């Protein structure tokens, strides 16, 4: 099921389906990408982004050791 994307995107972050990665906190370890069931997270040397395939399962939010993945309301799950 695709998540609704009526939530507001955080303006300066990579954000789809209500989830975004705070680039100032992310350490680019790619752990979120490992637990993403739909391969929706791309991590590079110094950037990371959630693409449109995100199904909003929240695995990445639960995994992230530094709480860098947030909902666009500004809070983690």
């Amino acid at each position, binding site marked *: 099921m695709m998540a609704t994307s009526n939530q507001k995107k955080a303006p300066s972050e990579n954000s789809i389906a209500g989830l975004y990665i705070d680039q100032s906190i992310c350490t680019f370890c*790619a752990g979120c990408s490992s637990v993403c069931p*739909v391969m929706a997270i791309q991590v590079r040397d110094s950037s990371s982004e959630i693409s449109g395939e995100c199904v909003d399962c929240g695995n990445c939010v639960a995994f992230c*050791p530094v709480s860098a993945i947030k909902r666009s309301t500004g809070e983690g799950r």
Partner: protein
Amino acid sequence: MKAFDAVVVGGSIAGLYAGMKLARGGMSVCIIDRKSTIGVPVRCGEATGNLGELSRFFEPQKSWVAREIGGCALHINDSFCVKQAVRDAGVVLHRDKLEQGLADEAGKLGATILLDTVATGLYESHRGKWDGVVIENGGAVKGRYIIGADGCESKVGQWAGITRPLALDEVASTIEYHVESDYCNDGFLHFFMGSTVIMPGYIWVFPKGENHVLVGGGIYGCPRNNPKVKQYVDEFIKYRMPGARCHSMITGCVPVTLCPRELTRRNVLVVGDAARQSNPLSAGGIMNALEAADLAAHAMLVCKGNEETLRMYSRQWARNQRRQQKLYRLLRNVVVNSSDGEVIALARTGSRLFKGELDRSKPFKLPIIPTFRLIMNVLPKAIRHCRALAG
């Protein structure tokens, strides 16, 4: 572009060693990595087997070793500690230097290493065979064989249908600080467990050098309403090492599950964390990655294009390490589902197995009575766990 015999996706320890062994065996090899520098950043606790074990794979250089390990210590909350000296226990590495050394060696043997190169898919020809990998910004790196050594998030394994994304209960969320401190800096590997320290998982303090230790933590399964591993480790450092200077912080993901039965599909193989070959209890994976890369490269060198022979790698791995993984996974589940008191009882019984310093180079005979007590301690919980899994 020139077609290689083998394309290795991932320039970390498993990928570099496999590439090196294949190049030594006469294959043309291309190793690609999304990072811009080999070995950096180090996302690893860096403790591994001893120099004798490492020299089965390559000649270890002195500069790769930060510290020799003198033994292990297990702390449960603040109420229990047991220490065991072990001769030839292992070493704490400078993993960045080791990986750079392996890359140099692979390069000398003729391997091509492409950094800042991101694989975005398998390159499929009209013959229905994977002929390499597609890379970002266009183009492809072609090869007769493809090794996925692209870590926990392995895309190669998923593209080939060998692995699937990891579930939350199949990973450990980890963090590690490089700390300027002499706390527990006695040459032993220190493990801290217990409900007042971290649950469910453990915190480690590994010696890195004079006045430098690695302090890290891992949580099995990332429970959704649990505090984050960073909170546990920050608290640990704050209260046990006040005033200590943290130089760097890294995070990571370690598979703590079983590797798949089949590690190859057509001409694609997976090794290391990409193949979920780490230890489900300790989350350690350096020796496993080297062992797997060795078996995979050997199978590639002897198979001469025969897929059935290539599958020898999966069978050899299943015969040895996969069985061990099952045992370690069971032990982890026993420990995670035990109370602090029960873990202390287990550790106390376990500590009676050894008298004095344990020498890893000599065969070790388990004493009958303590071993029997330990088994009786673990067995009921293990049976309960297996029943829960079955039911």
